[in-house]
């Protein structure tokens, strides 16, 4: 059974005045995927593509406007109170900016103990003991438990944020750009740590990133999003070796590389505003192979081998 399953998830936000109409913006539209225990699914796309909204949905911080989200095959929508609290033990989150996500006025011990306190686990002394043990696991020293966040570097803070997410022994960790605020050498340390912890605890990751080199390294499967919709999804190997959607292709070609590549076709323009998405295929305004058909009708996801592609002109 899948650990996490999304079925046609849709998330709309209402913006503007609620009294005088206001508008709705669709942040996530018809996204479906499954995530098996112990696996990593990466979500990639440019800013505004809905990847962070998807993370908030998966983390049960937002309720989808439509669609279903199942954890261990059981629906999550409509659960509240104790039911929701126990679901939250299964799913934890690591945020992008370790400078903003740790309370500067609390010691590391109380930051790590807080999830346990919320769920009423252990006595205060036991919680500090658990925090010490977890510091060990993430490569920090146990005696640092009484320190404050400002005494740590960015990489160390991200280790603390990861430790906090693991305190409740979740089976799924949602990581929203966990390494993009870090230097390259530190980034490699954190990625290694995340992979080690995955093996040790049997964690599944929903890994949100804009960095395709990182995704290629850490993930087993990938979801490429554009303006709230999935344009291509499948195993990492097949998407990287044979991208079929023009957007995926241009993302891959935009990847800077230390091996100098020759010419790359660059993508024109910028992502359109989610407030006024283009008609038909949302990508047609920037697509090199768009035709009239693309402006009229929206392509549905079709399967090609082990991948799903939403393009009228995708070829097997």
């Amino acid at each position, binding site marked *: 059974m899948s650990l996490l399953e999304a079925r046609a998830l849709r998330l709309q936000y209402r913006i503007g005045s609620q009294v005088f109409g206001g508008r709705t913006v669709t942040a996530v539209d018809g996204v479906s995927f499954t995530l098996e225990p112990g696996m990593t699914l990466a979500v990639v796309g*440019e*800013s505004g593509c809905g990847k962070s909204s998807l993370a908030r949905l998966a983390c049960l911080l937002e309720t989808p406007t439509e669609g279903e989200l199942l954890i261990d095959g059981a629906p999550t929508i409509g659960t509240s109170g104790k039911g929701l609290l126990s679901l939250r033990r299964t799913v934890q989150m690591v945020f992008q900016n370790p400078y903003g996500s740790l309370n500067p006025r609390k010691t590391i011990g109380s930051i790590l103990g807080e999830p346990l306190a919320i769920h009423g686990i252990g006595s205060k002394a036991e919680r500090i003991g658990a925090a010490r043990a977890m510091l060990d696991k993430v490569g920090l020293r146990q005696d640092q438990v009484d320190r404050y966040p400002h005494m740590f*570097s*960015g*990489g*160390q803070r991200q280790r603390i944020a990861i430790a906090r997410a693991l305190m409740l022994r979740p089976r799924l960790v949602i990581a929203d750009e966990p390494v993009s605020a870090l*230097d*390259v*050498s*530190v*980034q*490699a*340390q954190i*990625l*290694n740590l995340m*992979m080690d912890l995955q093996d040790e605890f049997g964690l599944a990751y929903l890994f949100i990133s*804009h*960095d*395709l*080199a*990182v995704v*290629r*390294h850490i993930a087993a499967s990938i979801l490429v999003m554009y303006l709230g919709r999935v344009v291509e999804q499948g195993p990492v190997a097949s998407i990287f070796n044979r991208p079929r959607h023009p957007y995926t292709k*241009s*993302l891959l070609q*935009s*990847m*800077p*590389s*230390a*091996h*100098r*590549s020759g010419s*790359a076709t*660059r*993508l024109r323009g*910028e992502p359109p505003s989610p407030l006024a998405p283009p008609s038909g295929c949302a990508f047609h305004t920037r697509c090199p192979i768009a035709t009239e058909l693309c402006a009229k009708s929206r392509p549905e996801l079709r399967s090609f081998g082990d991948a799903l592609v939403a393009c009228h002109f995708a070829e097997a």
Partner: protein
Amino acid sequence: MSVTFATQRGPMRAVEGVDLTVNPGEIVGIVGESGSGKSVSMMAAMGLIAPPARVTADIMRFGDIDLLAIDRRQRRRLVGKEMAMIFQEPTASLNPCFTIGWQIGETLKLHERLGRRARRDRVIELLRQVGIPAPETRLGAYPHQLSGGMNQRVMIAMAIACNPSLLIADEPTTALDVTIQRQILELLVGLQRDRTMGLVLITHDMSVIAETAHRVQVMYAGQVVEQAQADRLFEAPRHPYTGALLAALPEQATGRRLATIPGIVPGIADRPTGCLFNPRCGRTTPICIQEQPLLTGASGQTARCYHPLDGRAS
């Protein structure tokens, strides 16, 4: 050139003995992690470092002008006109209270004798050059109405408004998406080529450097640890730090585990003795801890190391 900050715990040296020349039409990349002094050294060159920090140099020259001898008024005539700089966060470097047309016009007003009408035409022309669609209608836009990529284009338009011969770009694409990053890099390289401008590109991203720079300086804890032609550097790095930075890129990974550099960049107050990289280096011997190595090497590739890497280590 060195930059020293006066702090409560005494003077701290953020940049130490950096030598850099930029020729017309050349792209020099400066790469390093946070805290390596790459931004501070270029801000010092622009004269943007204010007391209590102190900039010292044996020579600091821009063309024929001795930057150490000129007064503030003369420098102000130079900065923004002959030498210009763009910063990492475009949305934070633009003034949110004024339209982009006004902000670009301000640069022109300060440095060029142009009438209102001529200035407006020039701003439109500049916006067109940096690839902003429908420039006439964008003149009245405020920074918050534009995307990050568009704001960075506005910053570039402002920087090239007076045809500078030197442009310093400090992490110009770090805050942007990959597809926009590529557009901005191509724009910068295109402008640099058309105007035979000198371009200094500061970044922490090795792959950005690999794709654009002619010559590269690698900085670590305030010092230049290696410099070479870009091709050489990526093919055969000599300093272990350069090698380790390249190996840490996920695209270089051979197995599941990524290569890492143990430890962190030393802070300004806790720099080790001898070679600054010795606590994190795999090749450290007693001499590395006792004495600081000098930049040595042949055929335009110099490294500050007693035990440099040889051959095709990456």
